[in-house]
């Protein structure tokens, strides 16, 4: 089962905690039979209150980084999307919390328009990707999402990917060897599953009606990221920097697979503008990403040679050289 399903308890986390935190600060009673008795009562009350608030805190924190069968998972909201980080192993609880904090910190740096090493790194990577894609990826053209406050830049096509890389690095440096990071559709698979197999990530079929499978295909990922870009679900949100219009390249869904989620993220956005042939050309000429899976508006699936070994599908597909 997808690891991100531990929703019921986790989603309540932040509200529940603020709601219950003042247990120890509860105003004390009014009736004062006698001073000594009052003191006694107060002491008892305090003892109860602190015991209960301690218990609540313990329970609620446990639900923040909920234990899973093999480790811990955390779900949170950042960069306008729901994110889950799930890791396996003994010390995974602290590790997933650390990864979450890294993503949250990046999210607020971007929202605040703050200058930081990470924001600078995103900006310089974005510039690199603009060059690589011949301008098809361009954060200077403000789209509809995630515009960094005051900067005039739209980091929506790269920030989540960068955040996934941050989270993966954070987990790895905490010693995690098995984790799945899902930042609102930007997936990073760290290591292998507890059973030793690769992480299986389904690419949703943009045209599920009448299809045999809900997936256009399934990727088997180990230490790889996959990022999908498409408009069938969220409506037109990718702008062609060349024309200033919503991009129309004949592609319904593009998934880019590689070691850098930020690069995958930027390329998936750019490919949407570039169309199939140019995108295939770019992947042939560079090794910034492992490969990609394209689904055309007509439903045809094309994958690159680089991902042939990790892609399976119940539908027919073509391998492009």
């Amino acid at each position, binding site marked *: 089962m*997808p690891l991100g399903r531990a929703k019921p*308890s986790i989603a309540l986390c932040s509200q529940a905690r603020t709601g219950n935190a003042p247990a120890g600060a509860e105003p004390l009673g009014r009736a004062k039979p006698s001073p000594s008795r009052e003191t006694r009562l107060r002491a008892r009350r305090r003892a109860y209150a602190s015991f209960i608030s301690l*218990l609540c805190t313990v329970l609620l924190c446990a*639900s923040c980084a909920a*234990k899973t069968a093999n480790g811990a998972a955390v779900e949170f909201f950042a960069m306008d999307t729901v994110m889950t980080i799930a890791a396996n192993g003994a010390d995974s609880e602290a590790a997933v919390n650390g990864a979450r904090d890294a993503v949250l910190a990046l999210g607020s740096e971007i929202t605040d328009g703050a200058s930081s090493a990470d924001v600078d790194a995103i900006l310089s990577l974005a510039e690199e990707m603009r060059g690589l894609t011949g301008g098809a990826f361009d954060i200077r053209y403000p789209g509809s999402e995630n515009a960094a406050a005051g900067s005039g830049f739209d980091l929506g096509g790269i920030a989540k990917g960068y955040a996934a890389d941050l989270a993966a690095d954070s987990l790895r440096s905490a010693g995690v060897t098995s984790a799945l990071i899902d930042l609102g559709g930007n997936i990073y698979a760290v290591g292998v599953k507890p059973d030793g197999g690769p992480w299986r990530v389904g*690419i949703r079929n943009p045209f599920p009606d009448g299809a045999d499978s809900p*997936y256009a295909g*399934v990727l088997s990922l180990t230490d790889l990221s996959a990022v999908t870009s498409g408009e069938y679900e969220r409506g037109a949100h990718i702008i062609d920097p060349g024309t200033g219009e919503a991009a129309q390249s004949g592609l319904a869904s593009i998934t880019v697979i590689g070691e850098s989620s930020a690069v995958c993220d930027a390329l998936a956005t750019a490919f949407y503008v570039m169309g199939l042939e140019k995108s295939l050309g770019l992947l042939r000429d560079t090794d910034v990403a492992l490969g990609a899976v394209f689904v055309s508006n007509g439903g045809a699936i094309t994958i690159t040679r680089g991902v042939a070994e990790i892609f399976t599908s119940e539908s027919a597909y073509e391998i492009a050289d």
Partner: protein
Amino acid sequence: MKSRTELNRRIIFWVAVLAAVSVAGICSYLLLVSGGVKSETVQILQNGEIIREIDLRSLAEPVDVTVEADGRLNVVRVSRDGVYMLEADCPDQICVRQGTLGAVPIVCLPNRVTVRFAYAPPSAVDAELG
């Protein structure tokens, strides 16, 4: 005395809060480890093949499902209140004695009949994209 009543009330309140939180936590944990939600659908299998699927919610009246194969007979009573083996011509009658269907399937080994709840199949993928 008033303050003591109030104290008691407060204790009860917090114990209730604690209990609610614990129950919610335990439920979601169970949901997590069970790998899916128990469905309301009962499956009857003969020799490993599903021969009948019944959605309990669709039942107004109890239904008796007769399974006949190789001259053997089983009757499964399916109702909203419970599912059990009403009758079987097997020698050991273990399936009949098992009573109401729970998480463990009712199996009539001699007749190769299985009655079980259909579980939402565990997902074939760990995450989804797109």
